[in-house]
């Protein structure tokens, strides 16, 4: 792909820039998708286990909910990092 963009740039610089921009957009979009996908799996696993724990032991629900909420936020940070990379490179 890089060789192709270099070849195109040799003939028409404007078209080469457009191709590079398209490459950046697609790559960063892919990175954001991967980040969001990984976080979704993490959150699903985390919340599933927390719900199981709360159903088994409702008296510990307060502690479980607190740590679950923080866990969700930490996991979501991974998606936000992917999103920021996406907006800085490809948006």
């Amino acid at each position, binding site marked *: 792909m890089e060789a192709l963009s270099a070849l195109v740039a040799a003939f028409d610089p404007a078209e080469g820039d457009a191709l590079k921009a398209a490459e950046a957009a697609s790559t960063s979009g892919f990175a954001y998708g991967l980040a*969001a996908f990984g*976080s*979704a799996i993490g*959150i*699903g696993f985390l*919340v*599933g286990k927390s*719900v*199981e724990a*709360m*159903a*088994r032991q*409702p008296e510990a*629900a*307060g*502690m479980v*909910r*607190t*740590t*679950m*909420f*923080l866990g*969700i*936020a*930490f996991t*979501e*940070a991974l*998606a*936000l*990092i992917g*999103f*920021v990379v996406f*907006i*800085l490179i490809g*948006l």
Partner: protein
Amino acid sequence: MTDSPTPMTTRLDGEAPEIEVSFDIVKRGAYAAPVIVAVCAVFAGLDGVFSALYGMALVLVNFLCAAGLVAVTARISLGLMMGAVLFGYIGRLGLIYLALVLVRDASWISLTALGLTIIVTHLGLLVWEMRYVAASLAYPGLKPRRK
């Protein structure tokens, strides 16, 4: 044999700790805001100031929405809470994307400052809150009381 509680029928009444945690995070965000805004102002000028304020508002509203969703749905059913957290995650990511798309071409925005503010604020406030939560879970006797 007795019926064991299932996640679909179990509901959690009483206090919602995540609301307390999220209000605490917002309070800490207010403390940290001048520092973050000043740093962004040094690197990106007035655009950095507006971007930092916008980014912080996004992060804090995101925390409040997440906590509200969990608190409301936990009173109905744990199964609903799980679904709300998962679909809420997708919904909130979509809202953040929309909020960014709306301002990306604005003259007062600096995307670098905005992006870095989102990451630093989100992680920084979480780590700050985590220290407090870890201490209060490990040593309940030292937990600060509300006045």
